[in-house]
């Protein structure tokens, strides 16, 4: 019965080794997608290369469908998976700030690691900023953070919110991805002139 972490008491070394192994896969596919390149990433905001949405959406649909099928087969207990508590103000304010930083800096945290690993100096500058922000946020904004924490609610997923079964959302996400794939192809043609 999965997840493994709920049925098997992994030693710390084994657990951290698995984290490193998963990380290798994570970084490998990020780099293969071209996400070690700031210009490839920000292209999504100028619509001439939608790879960011294609990769993210496909990854989400793949994992979502996999979780659904494993749970339906009785091999995975979804209730054992960690789900971040819902916090709407945190998600909205944080998301807006994050999105601006993404376009200004050219990376997000994970992709900047891939950029560093392939020698990009701007990736190293970005990642230094991430570290400084993590430290500075804890030092300067802990009051704001504590206030924000009061808005936290228990975990909430779309099936719980709507009462619709998970399978419907799997189908809906696949349908939206197919539609978006077609739309993105059109957008890339339409905005190909923006490519520097």
């Amino acid at each position: 019965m999965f997840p493994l972490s709920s049925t098997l008491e992994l030693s710390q070394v084994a657990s951290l080794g698995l984290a490193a192994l998963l990380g290798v896969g994570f970084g490998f596919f990020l780099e293969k997608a071209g996400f070690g390149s700031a210009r490839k990433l920000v292209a999504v905001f100028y619509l001439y290369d939608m790879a960011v949405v294609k990769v993210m959406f496909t990854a989400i649909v793949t994992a979502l469908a996999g979780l659904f099928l494993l749970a339906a087969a009785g091999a995975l207990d979804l209730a054992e998976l960690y789900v971040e508590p819902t916090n709407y103000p945190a998600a909205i304010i944080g998301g807006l700030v994050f999105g601006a930083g993404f376009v200004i800096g050219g990376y997000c945290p994970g992709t900047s690691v891939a950029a560093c690993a392939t020698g990009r100096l701007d990736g190293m500058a970005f990642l230094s900023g991430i570290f400084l922000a993590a430290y500075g946020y804890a030092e300067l904004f802990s009051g704001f953070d504590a206030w924000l924490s009061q808005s936290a609610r228990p975990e909430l997923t779309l099936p719980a919110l709507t009462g619709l079964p998970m399978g419907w959302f799997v189908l809906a996400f696949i349908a939206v991805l197919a539609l978006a794939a077609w739309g993105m192809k059109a957008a890339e043609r339409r905005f190909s002139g923006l490519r520097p």
Partner: protein
Amino acid sequence: MNTIATPGRHPAMGNPAPYWNPYLAGFGLGLVLLAAYVIAGRGLGATGAFSTLSAWIANAISPEHALSSSVHARYLANGDTPLTAWLTWLVLGAFVGAAISGFFAGRFSLSIEKGPGVSNGQRLVLAFSGGIIAGIGSRIARGCTSGQALTGAAILNVGSLVFMIAVFVAGYAVAWALRKEWL
């Protein structure tokens, strides 16, 4: 790929291999995310590693001071040090995985990625500033594109989907104002 090499350096290898088809790379990434859930019961993440490191440094300088910040305290409470934190090893692994992929594809080069309209120095300042802003955003949202958007969306977490929409709304809102940086 026309990376702008730093003066005095040249991309070590000849023509870099093309990137993978995005749907194929996304499928691979999705399998890694699925494996993380199935093995560890949790998804991926990146910025949490830096919060653990920050809390550890603050605690090493002054434990009283570190505990006076609710954010540091949260990361100290679970007893993790940077070397025993799950996310630290995930990030280290990601570095190795990206290095392997980039090296064998001929994409490793000490260079600066930028649009044609900005200088190397300007680009580095913008990258650093953007890193600070994105870093603060990820701390406010309790996660970034990996730990919040990707991981949460795969399990249909409503807050994660709201975060992802907010990221793209802000991105498209500021992109035109920043076009001189990239186009």
